[in-house]
């Protein structure tokens, strides 16, 4: 009998699928194309997952909560050399899962509601909700999976649904291109992920996360450690594709061809975050090298996307690049070991970015599908609701204090600083630096956006005629606020972007429930394989533990009821180590230690020296991080004000002045052009070549032969049509020519025949004589 939560989660998983099935087959027959059905089902989905959330998070407030259930999916029987072999499918619920469940189903539900307004009157209205259904299904599948195989399955399925939704307006060629691009780019990433899965499977003959962790912990990984690192990086490639990390980020901006609510749901809040979620799932098997790669990829992505976002005109593209940039943050966070921070950012970002996209959708809706910010402006008065919610979300994104975004981003940056410290500085400081710089840019371009969209005068009339595409007849209609169906989600999401939701302390997310419940897991990669330039980290940790040996005893003795030990016991970690960790934390977190309830004690406790070191370094760098980030954010916003509000600097002129840089950013670093010139053109060329090869070489060993055969063929009365090409060609050619030669012997003169026969006879006799003699 499986646990009730499991049953609930299965129901949660299947409900959206039901919605898909119903709508894809019956949408034409249902009233309103059955949108009420979809919304209702999603409402139920959200309700149940909220229940799970309540049960897991609020009732049982337990960091080590974990629940798993699985069944035999494929039974290979008794495999020679391996023994009985089954492939299991299953469900695993822990805190992260519960939170993700709630988040995904909530946003999905909101988007459904929103779409009833936004998509109303579309030709394929019903089909749209069906697609949303299958997307929600596969996304929930990713969240609930307990093994690599099923996660890969759902991974591809979200790919499919994103493909379908991006190309929802498939009659637009741009949309069709975008969907193909998205799918293929993701496939490239998936290849890597698949290879990574293969590496792990080939060692352990299982796909389950837990089993794999166990095996690695037990040191059953028999290939060289390089393979383990490779496995980590390859698995990460899946995330690179799905979460649009450099160098596979190119598809996400184009994905904005899809309906805006879709952009909000898939390409901002949930699917793109799946990559991060996946890396978090496999976090424990990542070797140090793999983590470094991840960190740098994240940093580069964050920075690059931010620089591009500055110069974009399309309101959705700006948001898209900011999404890429934020995802870069999360990946960076995981790379530097700020596990819970990264996931925290995932959550917060999901809300405010969804809010931003829905807001932009509202704007576009109101502006009659005008997406270019240059022709907007002055909307604050016309659409107050949108304005307010949009602004709150923007502040969260820019990372101003009192917002959720501030806490999470700050935590990540702190982790980055600590990481750089532990790794011994040098190149590693690049990561936090890029992080902070991108933070500034983020503040800048968001300020720019807010200003261009909401303030100043309406610039609709400035739009040059030639840029009017399709909707110019509505071009100058009156702009007014969107209907409630679209307003409500904005409000909810904006509300969820406030710090109070996550943590009592606006400055420190670590005090919040999230950071408590989602804690960095202990790595399973044996310490001896850990990276070598950690001597200082080792030292650090050992010192920390050394000087607390004594303290630990008495700490344990004195405050044995303290949460730390409590937590430690829950984690089944040896008390002294726990105390050591705790005191490490306490010592270096002196400033906050004065707090009456010791949330900061809940920093996880590590055997692995590196993780321990990073953890406490991160904690140490918490305040500096706050400081720096506030500064850079202030700088960014200030710059935005200077440029756009006070107009001290004219953007156009500046752009002219630094034209190459401007163009470089405006053209997205030319990635599309590069890929098109190399990968796409290349493979098409190869395919042409091979096809030619197939037709002319393989299929007719040498063209010349074929031609010759045809010549002979025509001579022999259309024989060529039966003489086939390829090797047969060659044979036929050979056979024919020999035949042509031989048939000449048949002269028709009987005496010649006799001569030949006699020659044969005498010839053989002579040959025989020669032999005998």
């Amino acid at each position, binding site marked *: 009998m499986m646990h009730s939560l499991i049953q609930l989660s299965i129901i949660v998983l299947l409900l959206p699928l039901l919605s898909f099935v119903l709508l894809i087959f019956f949408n034409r027959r249902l009233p309103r194309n059955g949108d009420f059905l979809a919304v209702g089902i999603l409402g139920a989905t959200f309700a149940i997952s909220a229940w799970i959330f309540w049960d897991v998070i609020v009732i049982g407030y337990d960091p080590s909560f974990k629940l798993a259930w699985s069944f035999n999916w494929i039974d290979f029987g008794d495999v020679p050399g391996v023994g009985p072999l089954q492939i299991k499918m299953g469900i695993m619920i822990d805190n992260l899962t519960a939170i993700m469940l709630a988040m995904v189903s909530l946003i999905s539900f909101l988007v459904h509601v929103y779409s009833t307004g936004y998509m109303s009157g579309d030709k394929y209205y019903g089909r749209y909700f069906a697609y949303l259904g299958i997307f929600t299904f596969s996304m929930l599948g990713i969240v609930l999976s307990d093994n690599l195989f099923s996660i890969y399955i759902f991974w591809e399925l979200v790919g499919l649904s994103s493909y379908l939704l991006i190309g929802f307006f498939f009659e637009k060629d741009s949309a069709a291109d975008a969907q193909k691009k998205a799918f293929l780019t993701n496939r490239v990433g998936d290849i890597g992920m698949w290879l990574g899965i293969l590496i792990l499977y080939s060692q352990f003959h299982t796909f389950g996360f837990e089993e794999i962790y166990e095996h690695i912990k037990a040191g059953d990984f028999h290939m060289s450690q390089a393979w383990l690192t490779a496995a980590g990086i390859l698995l990460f490639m899946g995330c690179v594709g799905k979460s649009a990390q450099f160098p596979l980020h190119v598809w996400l901006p184009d994905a904005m061809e899809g309906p805006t609510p879709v952009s909000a749901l898939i390409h901002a809040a949930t699917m793109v975050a799946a990559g991060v979620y996946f890396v978090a799932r496999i976090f424990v098997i990542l070797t140090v090298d793999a983590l470094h790669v991840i960190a740098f990829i994240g940093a580069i992505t964050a920075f690059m996307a931010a620089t591009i976002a500055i110069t974009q005109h399309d309101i959705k593209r700006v948001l898209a690049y900011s999404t890429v940039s934020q995802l870069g943050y999360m990946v960076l966070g995981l790379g530097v070991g700020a596990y819970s921070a990264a996931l925290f950012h995932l959550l917060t970002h999901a809300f405010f970015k969804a809010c931003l996209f829905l807001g932009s959708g509202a704007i576009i809706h109101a502006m009659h599908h005008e997406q270019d910010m240059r022709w907007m402006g002055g909307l604050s008065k016309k659409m107050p609701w949108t304005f307010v919610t949009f602004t709150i979300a923007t502040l969260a994104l820019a990372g101003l204090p009192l917002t959720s975004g501030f806490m999470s981003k700050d935590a990540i940056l702190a982790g980055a600083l600590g990481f750089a410290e532990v790794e011994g500085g040098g190149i590693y400081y690049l990561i936090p630096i890029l992080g902070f710089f991108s933070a500034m840019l983020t503040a800048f371009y968001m300020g720019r956006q807010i200003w261009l969209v909401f303030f100043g005068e309406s610039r609709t009339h400035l739009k040059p005629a030639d840029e009017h595409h399709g909707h110019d007849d509505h071009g100058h209609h009156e702009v007014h606020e969107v209907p409630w169906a679209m307003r409500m989600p904005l409000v909810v999401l904006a509300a969820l972007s406030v710090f109070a939701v996550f943590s009592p302390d606006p400055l420190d997310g670590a005090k919040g429930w999230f950071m408590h419940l989602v804690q960095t897991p202990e790595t399973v990669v044996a310490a001896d394989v850990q990276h070598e330039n950690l001597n200082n980290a080792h030292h650090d940790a050992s010192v920390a533990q050394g000087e607390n040996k004594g303290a630990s005893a008495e700490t344990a003795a004195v405050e044995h009821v303290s949460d730390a030990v409590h937590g430690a016991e829950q984690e089944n970690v040896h008390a002294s180590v726990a105390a050591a960790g705790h005191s490490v934390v306490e010592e270096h977190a002196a400033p906050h230690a004065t707090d009456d309830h010791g949330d900061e004690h809940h920093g996880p406790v590590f055997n692995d020296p590196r993780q321990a070191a990073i953890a406490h370094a991160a904690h140490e760098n918490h305040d500096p991080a706050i400081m720096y980030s506030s500064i850079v954010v202030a700088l960014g916003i200030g710059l935005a004000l200077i440029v756009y509000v006070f107009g001290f600097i004219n953007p156009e002129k500046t752009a002219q002045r630094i034209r190459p840089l401007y163009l470089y950013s405006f053209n997205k670093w030319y990635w599309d052009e590069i890929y098109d010139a190399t990968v796409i053109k290349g493979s098409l060329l190869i395919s042409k070549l091979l096809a030619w090869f197939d037709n002319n070489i393989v299929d007719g060993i040498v063209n010349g032969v074929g031609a010759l055969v045809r010549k002979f063929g025509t001579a022999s009365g259309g024989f060529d049509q039966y003489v086939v090409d390829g090797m047969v060609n060659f044979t*036929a050619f050979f056979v024919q020519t020999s035949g042509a030669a031989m048939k000449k012997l048949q002269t028709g003169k*009987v005496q010649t025949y006799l001569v030949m*026969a006699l020659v*044969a006879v005498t010839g053989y006799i002579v040959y025989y004589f020669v032999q005998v003699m």
Partner: protein
Amino acid sequence: MYELPSGAEIQNIVTVLKSSAAYYIPEIYLSVLFLVLILADLIFGPKKHHLLSVTSLIGLVGSLWFIWQQHAIVGQEIFFGMYVVDEFAIFFKYFFVLSGILTVLLSMSSDELNSRVSGLGEYYVLVVGMVIGMVMMASSTDLVMILVSMELVSLAAYVLTGYLKREKRSTEASLKYLVYGAVSSGLMIYGFSILYGLTGETNISEISSVLLSRGYDPVTLMIASIMILAGIGYKVGVVPFHFWSPDVYEGAPIPVTAFLSVASKAAGFALLIRFFYVAVPHGAETGALTPGSEWLLLLMILSVASMIYGNVVALWQKNVKRLLAYSSIAHGGYILLGIIVMDELGTQATLFYLLSYLFMNFGAFLVAVIIANKTGSENIEDYRGLGRRMPLAGAAMTVFLISLVGLPPTVGFIGKLMIFSALLAKGSVFVWLALVGILTSVISLYYYMLIPLNMYLRESKQLLPDTIKTGFLPQLVTACLMLLTLYFGIFFTPLSDFAHFAVTLFGNQLY
């Protein structure tokens, strides 16, 4: 210098002759038939060709009964060992009579013969004569007898080939056949004379015993056997003694062509087996050739040459008869493979192959006759679009050709199977021969498929009626042959047992 035999000896001779006559009934019967036909021809005049044909048909069928009688008395040497009645001979008696019957049937359904102005006088007479000759070829064990029987066959064949006097092709064919045949038999007789000189014997079994006992000069023996081989090779039409066959086959009336390509070829093989197995020494173990048995190597060369040449040149043929002529050269090569193995299985395979060849080749020629009757042409081009219009003929032709290629489920496939089994049963010695056979049979697919391809895949240029009626008799025969080809392709036990029954010469004194 020679004194006359005494009365006792003469008495003895007479008794032997009397006793021998009892074993000679089928031949006698056939000779009677021969005479009866001549008389009928003289009495009723040549215009009554139905009468003649039916008479000869019944007569030939009747002869089967007499042959059946001989099963009881196998293994007899008669006429002072000039002639023998053994399973091998009986097999071929059946074979030749059967082919004679089929030839008569073909002739009955062939318009080019029946429309002949001066009637069909002595045509069937000659056919029966040929049958007699071939039957004797298969049973004779004395050089003289061999010579006589062969000449009997040849002379009849010359006339039959040239039977359509007014046709250029026919005349030309007969002339070439005559000249070539005469010279080959001349060669053979010369070879016989040398062999006689070596041994002083004309009975082949005594020749062999003398050779073994007294020893011999291998070179001389070799020359003799090569010359004899030339003579027999011309009968079986293997490269390089085949040159006459395409022209003759093309020129002769189709039934005669069929008869020559199956029966006289088979007679040649019968002679080949009997003579070379018995008379001249052969390598006891393959590979190691005892002196004087290098003709085995020669046989290999001949068979490979025939398979390649026949199949390759056939690719170029546009006339069905000529195409089948080349194909029959190739098949001669395949049959030789069976003989080369020089053992029981090989002989069995050879005989089986001959049987299968009987069915499929006569079938193919029969369809050729039917179509020639309708279109008056033997060119492949003129077969276009006939498959749909003559469903039976088309289907049958396809089956026969598939069988000639050697694909299951036809009797031709089993023939090839047994030949190759015989080769491979010797281990890896003969694998190369098998490979040649296999590959050439792939080549043969090209040209055999030309005919169905034209019949089915192409539409005829000139307008044809939607269905073409053909006579009942030819249809019946075609259907029977087709069914037999298929049936024996699936249940070939009877045929193969028959063949196995026939491998025993002189009560199995060989091997």
